[in-house]
């Protein structure tokens, strides 16, 4: 039995950015958790006074891993403010670029961030450990090597259409800056087929469609090929299904808007029917954040850092709430809201296994969707409509980054940005306590996590935190 104590976990790596977690430990388990984002950058303030279109250059640089998501959100917010509808084929190319980034992020998370923990010596006595060591040892495992090569090749699609990754400026309110030729389309098709081969050879050990067609937990339990098979084995042995259970409220803003509609639906799900997202019910609370001012909807919000870093607060992250409640966001949420039967089955367990499986399921789903999306891109059409920069107005851009719901809210006056608020997915998931003292989703999910005797950086806490795939650099924009 571990002693009752307080643990400070940090630097917390294999997450994007800076994260520190304080744990109150009692009776061998986490009794309370406090999540601190120990970095403040202040993008919302940098944007004030800039020309409206400068948001397209500045906001992608919030995040090096979900840069295109930021780009999309900014382009949609400006389009909303300027009442611009992008060229249909431009919207399809933007959706393609965005989905490619999200897929690349899922691959990075599974192989580089999440799985290497199972190669640790703490699991040396488990029957699957040698397989985990071969495949997932940090920086050396065969799965890591294969994944970064497949990812780099997949990102050739962004190189071709977006110039570079991260931080492209190709996505604009009116469409995209490069009109792909038929040759480009053929080349992108080849890149997607190469990526499908990687998924089928390495990750799933089976056709992508077989993963997308999974409907029950029994079918999932029986999966025994590829890295998915290894993950299923490890999850069963380590009890990952019961670890880090969330509160069961899931939100998605809907992924990849384009003329045929979003590929994954928007909505909120907490056990019954999917409800629409009440965007007006979003409020960022500041009670435990090093921020001054008062709780506000992001269209009215401000960002005033508390230089005194008052004791009552413990994070630079604000606490967003939807109609007063926390919500969990991410690939699992997206697939639940979209109504995938396996995701709905996983929703009931809502823990580490469910979140990781949500991503793997989405990898399969998105591969199929990307191929269909590419087929509808017509190189003979226009990819950009002429659109002047917005002079006056408000706009919202709500998208789905790999890690979940991302929103930009802008106010433009006389062509200049006078208000810009961003709520990133990790702001939702890794929020500190709100004004009523209610813990954020990760803080709540950590309660009850086992702490082994002698552990100063509990392995279960690491699994739970990484299962959310935090992007702290977005959080602390």
């Amino acid at each position: 039995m571990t002693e009752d104590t307080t643990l400070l976990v940090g630097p917390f790596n294999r997450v994007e950015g800076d994260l520190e977690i304080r744990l109150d430990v009692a009776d061998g388990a986490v009794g309370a958790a406090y999540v601190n984002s120990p970095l403040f950058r202040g993008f919302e303030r940098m944007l004030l006074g800039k020309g409206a279109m400068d948001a397209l250059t500045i906001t992608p640089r919030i995040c090096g891993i979900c840069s295109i998501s930021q780009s999309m959100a900014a382009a949609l917010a400006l389009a909303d403010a300027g009442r611009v509808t992008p060229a249909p084929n431009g919207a399809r190319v933007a959706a393609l670029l965005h989905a490619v980034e999200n897929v690349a992020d899922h691959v990075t998370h599974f192989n580089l961030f999440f799985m290497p923990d199972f190669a640790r010596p703490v699991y040396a006595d488990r029957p699957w450990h040698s397989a985990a060591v071969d495949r997932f040892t940090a920086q050396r495992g065969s799965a890591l090597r294969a994944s970064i090569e497949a990812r780099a090749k997949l990102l050739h699609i962004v190189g071709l259409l977006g110039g570079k990754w991260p931080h492209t400026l190709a996505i604009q309110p009116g469409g995209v800056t490069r009109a792909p030729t038929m040759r480009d389309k053929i080349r992108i098709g080849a890149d997607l087929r190469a990526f499908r081969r990687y998924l089928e050879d390495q990750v799933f050990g089976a056709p992508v469609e077989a993963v997308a067609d999974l409907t029950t937990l029994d079918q999932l339990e029986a999966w025994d090929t590829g890295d998915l098979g290894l993950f299923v084995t490890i999850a069963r042995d380590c009890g990952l299904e019961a670890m880090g259970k969330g509160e069961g409220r899931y939100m998605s803003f809907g992924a990849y808007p384009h003329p045929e509609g979003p590929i994954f639906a928007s909505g909120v799900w907490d056990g019954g029917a999917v409800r629409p997202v009440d965007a007006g019910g979003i409020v960022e609370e500041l009670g435990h954040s090093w921020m001054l001012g008062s709780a506000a909807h992001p269209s009215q919000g401000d960002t005033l850092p508390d230089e005194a870093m008052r004791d009552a607060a413990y994070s630079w992250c604000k606490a967003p709430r939807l109609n007063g409640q926390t919500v969990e966001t991410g690939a699992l949420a997206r697939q639940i809201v979209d109504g995938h039967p396996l995701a709905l089955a996983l929703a009931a367990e809502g823990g580490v296994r469910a979140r990781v499986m949500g991503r793997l399921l989405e990898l399969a789903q998105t591969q199929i969707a990307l191929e269909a999306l590419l087929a509808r891109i017509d190189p003979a059409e226009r990819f950009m409509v002429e659109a002047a920069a917005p002079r006056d107005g408000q706009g919202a851009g709500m998208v789905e980054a790999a890690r979940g719901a991302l929103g930009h809210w802008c106010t433009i006056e006389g062509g200049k940005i006078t208000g810009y608020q961003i709520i990133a997915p990790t702001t939702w998931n890794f929020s500190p306590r709100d004004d009523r003292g209610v813990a954020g989703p990760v803080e709540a999910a950590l309660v009850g996590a086992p702490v082994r005797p002698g552990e100063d950086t509990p392995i279960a806490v690491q699994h739970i935190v990484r299962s959310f795939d935090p992007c702290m650099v977005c959080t602390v924009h």
Partner: protein
Amino acid sequence: MNILWLQSAGCGGCTMSLLCAEDPNVFDLLDGAGLHFLWHPSLSEATGAEVRRLLAQVEAGEIPLDILCVEGSILMGPNGSGRYQMLAGTGRSMLDWLRSLAPLARHVVAVGTCATYGGITTAGENPADAIGVQYDGSHIGGALPADFRDKSGLPVINIAGCPTHPDWVTETLLMLAEGAMGSDALDGYGRPRFYADNLVHHACPKNEFYEYKASATQLSEMGCMMEHLGCIGTQAVGDCNIRGWNGAGSCTRAGYPCINCTAPEFEDPGHGFTETPKFAGIPVGLPSDMPKAWFMALASLSKAATPHRIGVNATQDRIAVPPSLKKPKP
């Protein structure tokens, strides 16, 4: 050689870009050159207390430090305390860690324009009071003093770029591993000359439009973006169009302007990123090393001489007029 990589105030995009290294992949490439990470925040197994112990050993001199890489700007705020970025779990600011570890390193490498000069994190009012490792914008003297030299006598090596090209980073590290980087390998802003002696303009696919000043008037058009759309590829250092990004991409190949992201203070151009500032209708910024009078004379001459094909294509989003074919000999 070992590498300790710290992420300070940035987006992590230079690491994400590094993972795009190809043929071989970044792990094999560094491993093959005898380079390994003592710790990297995105790539290493160690977390939490294991890392704190490692840092303590480095600080105590028990583990010699070969290369310290810093990705992200250094935050001085609030009020010079550096507390806008605390290294998680340590109760110390990143500023404090940098100043403690840098003198112990054989080489110090600033990765990305945030780390080199402050970069995007200093945009606008610079709310977090960000600076670079050895520069504050274009002025030498950052979190480390102007006269800082590593154990081999080099200043901080500034791999500028937002983000950095993966090869800029790996090739710099490989040169350090070979002992092949002396002070003459760096330019006046501390950037490795192997990429900074080139301009983005070199091998730009819009060069034929540039020759005739056949200009795009809005994004998505094929013409040169210097006259109207803010492109400063003729002044920006980088081999972007020679080397190619993510396969064969580049900003200008994708139809949007070079914003000079390898330069100090690129984040605040003083005008919109996709607008060219003009005086009396003439672009203010001229290509590097070009006498103004000659530029004006040549520009007006070449504009007058613009072939029909080039003039038409400049404002199209795809080639409308192909090159004329040589007629067969009679």
